[in-house]
C-alpha cells in the first residue's frame, strides 16, 4: 500500500538500532555486497540473504508495516533486536541502487513467517473485538481495594516524613546522604506506589545538584506533598484530576475510549534510562486532528524498547488515549500502512503561546514537567557567552568544563525568547539545531517546561526533511 519507491532514510533506519555498536555493524552491512535475493513487496515486507562468515547465508526478513512497529526475523544467532542484518537490509532497501527491488513476491522462507504473522494479527484483532472477559470481577475489585489501602498507608507515612523534614529543616538534607532516600523509596515500593518511590528518589538527588538547590528541593517536596494529599482526598477531586493522581502515584493507567484514526507524523523518538528501566518516548502529531500524542514504552535497563518508529515519516494508524495526565499518552492501535515520507509539519506558535499552553496544562496536571509545542520562526541564539560565565565565576575549573553557555530560541517578530533547558545545551542535537538555522529562523518541535525548552526536532525554513535533534 505504500507508494512504490517511497523509502526510509538511513537516519530513520538507524534510529531503530538498539545501541551504538549495532548501528555501526548495521551500517557496514548497508551495502549491496553481502546481499542477494533481496526484495520487498512494497507493502512493508523486506527480505534478503546476507552472506556471513559461514557457508550458509542468513535469512533476514523485516515487516515494517506492523501494528506495533517494525518486526524482525533473522536466522543469525544475535540476541539483539533488530540485529545488524535487519538494519543492514533496511539500509540497503533505503538506498537507491536497486539492490532491493519493489513489488516482488517473497520467497518461501520469508512467506512462511509473514503469513504466520498476518494470521496472528488477524486472530488478535478478532479477540480484541470480543468483550474482554475478566476471570473474576469480584476478586479483581478486592485486589484493587487492597492495593489502594497500601498506597494510602504509604502516602500517610510519606506525609509524616515530609512533615518531620520541614520541622527539622531541609538544610540537613545535604548531609543526610542518599541512603535515607533509598530507604524511603523502598518503603513506597512496598506500598505499591512506584510513582511516589520515583519522586522520592529524585528528591534525594537534588541536594547535590548545585547552586540553588534549596529552592528546587522545597518545590519538589511541596509537589510530593500535593500528590500525597491528592491521593488521600481523591474522592473529592474532579474525575480527570483524580485519574491523573492515580497514574502519578503509579497505578497502571488504561487506554480507554474510542480509537482515533489519523495520519500521524513521528516527530521525535528518544530514550531515557535509570538503573532499572529504559523508557522510550515517541511524539506523534496527527495531521488531521491537529493533536499531539505520546507513545510510551518500557524495557528493562540496557535493552531498547521494542517499539520504534522512524522520525519524519507519517503512518496511517489508530491510537487510543489514556485517562489522566493531560490526555497526551496514547496506545498505538492498528496501523493501516507502512510509515511513509510526508511534507506535513505541525503548525508553530509563538513563545508566549508556548509558555501559556504549559501553564494551562498544569491546571489538569500540576506535576507536569513540560508540554509539547512547536515553535514557528525562531532563531537559536546564545543568551550568555561562555566567556562571560567564566569571568563571573572566575575559576579555572569552569574554563575546563565544556560549557557552551546558555542558549535560547528567539522569536525575532516579538523579541521574546524561550531559554533552552540546561540539559538540552549539553546534547549534540543543540549543534545540529544551530547548524540547521545558521542564524535564520526555523520551526522547532520540543518540550516546553519550567526548566526551559528542550528541542527534539526541527525543520528548516524552506521545505526540507525533519531533522531529529535527540
Amino acid at each position, binding site marked *: 500500500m505504500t507508494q512504490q519507491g517511497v523509502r526510509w532514510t538511513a537516519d530513520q533506519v538507524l534510529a531503530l538500532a538498539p545501541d551504538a555498536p549495532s548501528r555501526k555493524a548495521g*551500517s*557496514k552491512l548497508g551495502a549491496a555486497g553481502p546481499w542477494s535475493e533481496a526484495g520487498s513487496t512494497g507493502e512493508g515486507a523486506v527480505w534478503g540473504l546476507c552472506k556471513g562468515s559461514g557457508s550458509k547465508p542468513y535469512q533476514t526478513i523485516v515487516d515494517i508495516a506492523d501494528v506495533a512497529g517494525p518486526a524482525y526475523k533473522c536466522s543469525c544467532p544475535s540476541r539483539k533486536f533488530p540485529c545488524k542484518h535487519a538494519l543492514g537490509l533496511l539500509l540497503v532497501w533505503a538506498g537507491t541502487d536497486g539492490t532491493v527491488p519493489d513489488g516482488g513476491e517473497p520467497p518461501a522462507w520469508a512467506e512462511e513467517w509473514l503469513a504466520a504473522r498476518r494470521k496472528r494479527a488477524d486472530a488478535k484483532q478478532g479477540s480484541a473485538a470480543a468483550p474482554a472477559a475478566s476471570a473474576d470481577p469480584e476478586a479483581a475489585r478486592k485486589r484493587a481495594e487492597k492495593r489502594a489501602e497500601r498506597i494510602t498507608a504509604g502516602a500517610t507515612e510519606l506525609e509524616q516524613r515530609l512533615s518531620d523534614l520541614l520541622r527539622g529543616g531541609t*538544610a540537613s538534607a545535604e548531609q543526610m546522604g542518599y541512603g535515607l532516600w533509598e530507604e524511603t523509596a523502598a518503603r513506597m515500593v512496598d506500598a505499591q506506589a512506584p510513582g511516589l518511590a520515583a519522586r522520592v528518589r529524585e528528591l534525594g538527588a537534588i541536594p547535590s545538584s548545585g547552586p540553588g538547590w534549596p529552592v528546587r*528541593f522545597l518545590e519538589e517536596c511541596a509537589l510530593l506533598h500535593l500528590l500525597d494529599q491528592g491521593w488521600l482526598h481523591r474522592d473529592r477531586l474532579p474525575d480527570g484530576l483524580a485519574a491523573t493522581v492515580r497514574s502519578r502515584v503509579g497505578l497502571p493507567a488504561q487506554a480507554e475510549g474510542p480509537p482515533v484514526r489519523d495520519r500521524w507524523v513521528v516527530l521525535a523518538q528518544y530514550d531515557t534510562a535509570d538503573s532499572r528501566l529504559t523508557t522510550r518516548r515517541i511524539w506523534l502529531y496527527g495531521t488531521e486532528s491537529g493533536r499531539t500524542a505520546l507513545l510510551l514504552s518500557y524495557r528493562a535497563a540496557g535493552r531498547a524498547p521494542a517499539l520504534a518508529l522512524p522520525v519524519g515519516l507519517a503512518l496511517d494508524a489508530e491510537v487510543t488515549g489514556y485517562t489522566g495526565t493531560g490526555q497526551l499518552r496514547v496506545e498505538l492501535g492498528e496501523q493501516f500502512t507502512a510509515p511513509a515520507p510526508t511534507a506535513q509539519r505541525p503548525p508553530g506558535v509563538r513563545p508566549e503561546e508556548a509558555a501559556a499552553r504549559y501553564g494551562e496544562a498544569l491546571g489538569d496536571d500540576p506535576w507536569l514537567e513540560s508540554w509539547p509545542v512547536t515553535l514557528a520562526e525562531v532563531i537559536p541564539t546564545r543568551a550568555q557567552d*561562555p566567556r562571560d560565565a567564566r569571568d563571573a565565576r572566575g575559576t579555572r575549573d569552569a574554563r575546563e568544563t565544556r560549557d557552551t553557555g546558555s542558549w535560547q530560541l528567539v522569536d525575532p517578530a516579538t523579541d*521574546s525568547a524561550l531559554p533552552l533547558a540546561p540539559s538540552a545545551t549539553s546534547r549534540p542535537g543543540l549543534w545540529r539545531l544551530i*547548524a540547521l538555522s545558521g542564524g535564520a529562523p526555523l520551526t522547532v518541535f520540543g518540550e516546553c517546561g*519550567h526548566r526551559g525548552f528542550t528541542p527534539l526536532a526541527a525543520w*528548516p525554513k524552506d521545505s526540507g526533511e525533519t531533522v531529529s535533534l535527540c
Partner: protein
Amino acid sequence: MVTTALLGTERRPLPAAAHAPGKEAPIALLDAAALQTLRRRAGLRPAPAAALPEPAADDPRPPVPPAARRRLATLLTDQPGTGGGRRGAAPDLVELLPQWLALANARGYGAPPELLPALLNAARGRTDLRPQALTFAGPRALWLARLNPDWKFALRATPGGGVTLPSADDAPKVRRLWEEGLFAERVALLTTLRAHHAGATLDLLVSTWSTERAEDRLMFLDSLRTGLSAADEPFLERALTDRSRNVRATAAELLSALPDSALAGRMSSRAASCVAVDHTSDAPTLTVEAPHECDAGMERDGVTPKPPTGRGERSWWLGQLVEAAPLATWQPRLGNRTPAEIVALPVADDWRSELHAAWCRAAVRQRDVAWSRALLGTPASPDAAGPGAVSLAERAKLLASLPAAERADWVAGFIAAHGLSEAFQLLGVCAVPWAEPLGRAVVDSLNIARDAGSYPWSFSGVMGLAERCLDPSEAVRLEALTAIPDEAENASPGAGGYWSEAFQRLVTTLRLRAAIRDELPPP
C-alpha cells in the same frame, strides 16, 4: 519561605503567606510552597531576547542530492577506533569518507547544514581529512566554529581564519590589511593575490621586506612558489644576500627552478665543469670531477658547505650543483645525447649513484618528463626492484611527473615483473581510480599470492589501497574470486576462507564506491 524550610519550622516562624489556622506548621508551609510553585510555573513568560547572531554567509553551491546526503550520514556514523580486530568482509566506511568528500567537492556540492557538526567532529579527529572536509563544509562551518571552541581548528585551518579578504582591486584596503593584519591574514592575502596579480604581490612584499622578521620572510617567500616566473628573479636575486640562511636557501631553490635565471646559468656552468664524457676508453664513459672547494659564490647561490655526518664534502657539493643546474645543460655538454642515452652511459669511479640521485632530484624539481622517464628505466629491469641507483622513494617521485596513463602502465609493468611487496609506495602516486591495466596487474598479483598459499594480511596494505583505488567497474570481474577455494596442500591453514573474505570486502567496497559515484552526479 525557603529560609524557614532550610532552618526548620521549629527554629523559624512561618512567613505570613503560609499562616493557616488549624494546621501544623510544616504542613502549612508545604501547602503554601505547593501553591507558590504552581503559580510560578503556570505564570512563566518568555524571556527578553538576547542579541541575534549574525546570519551565516550564503552558500551558493547546490545542496547534495538526498541519497548522497544519507550516504554521508552513514559514513559519518562510522567512527574509527571502535570494533577493532579482524576486518571481516564488511567495507571500512571511514576510509571512504575522504573519497566521498573529494568527489562532492569536485562536483561543487554544498554541505547539508544538519550534518556539519558531525563533519566538523570527524575533521577534528583526523587532520588528513581537514582540507577536504572544510572545503565541503563551506562558510556555515566557519560560522559554527566561531560559536564552538571545539571547532577552533577550522578557523586556524582556513586562511585568514575565515575573515573575508578585500578584493584584489581594492588597493587601499589590501595595503591596510597587509600593514596591520595578523600573520595568518597576511599570508592568506598574499596567497590570494598571488593567484591573480603576481606583480601586486611582489610590490607588497618589497614595500615592507626589510622590516619583516626572518620566519615571516621565509613564509612570505614560500608563497611565491605558486606562479613563479622570470618577473620574480630580481627580487629573489636580492634575497640571496638575506641575513637569514633559510631565506637565502629558499631563494636559491626558487631561482634554480627558473631555467633562464642567472643563478641557473651559474649553477649550470659549475655543474657542467664537473661532468664530462671520456672518449679515451673503449666505450664512452662519464667521468666526474667533484668540486674541490665551496667558494663564496657557490655559498651565495645556496650551496650548503657543510655536509651531514657520514658524507664527503666534495660529493655533497657535487650533488647540490647537479640538482640545481637546469637539465637542459647536459645534452649539449655530453655529446648531444638524449637523456636516456646519457643515463645509460657507464660512470667511472663509483660516481654513478651520486650522479643519478642528483639528476633524479633535478628531474623532480623541474618536473622534466624526458629525464624522469630516462631515470626510471624500464619497469622490468632487475634493479628496478632492489636498492639500485635509484631508490623506490625516488622512483615514486619521478613517476609523479609522468602523464597519468604512462605512470599506471609503468607501475603495472613493475608489479608484473616484481610482485606486490615493493609496489606499495609506487601505487600511492598513481591516479585514482586506477587505469585498467594497473588494476588488472594488482588483482592478478593478489590472485597469485592467494594461490601461493599465504595469508591475505601480508597484503593488507595493497588490499586497502585496492579498495579505495580500483575502478568500481572491476567489481564484476572480481566476483569469481570471492568463492572459498579448495585448500591446497602447501597453503596456510584457513587462508582460503580469509582470502574469500578479503575479496568479498573488496567487491563490497567497490560496489559502495560505485553507488557513491552515482549518488553524486555532476550538478
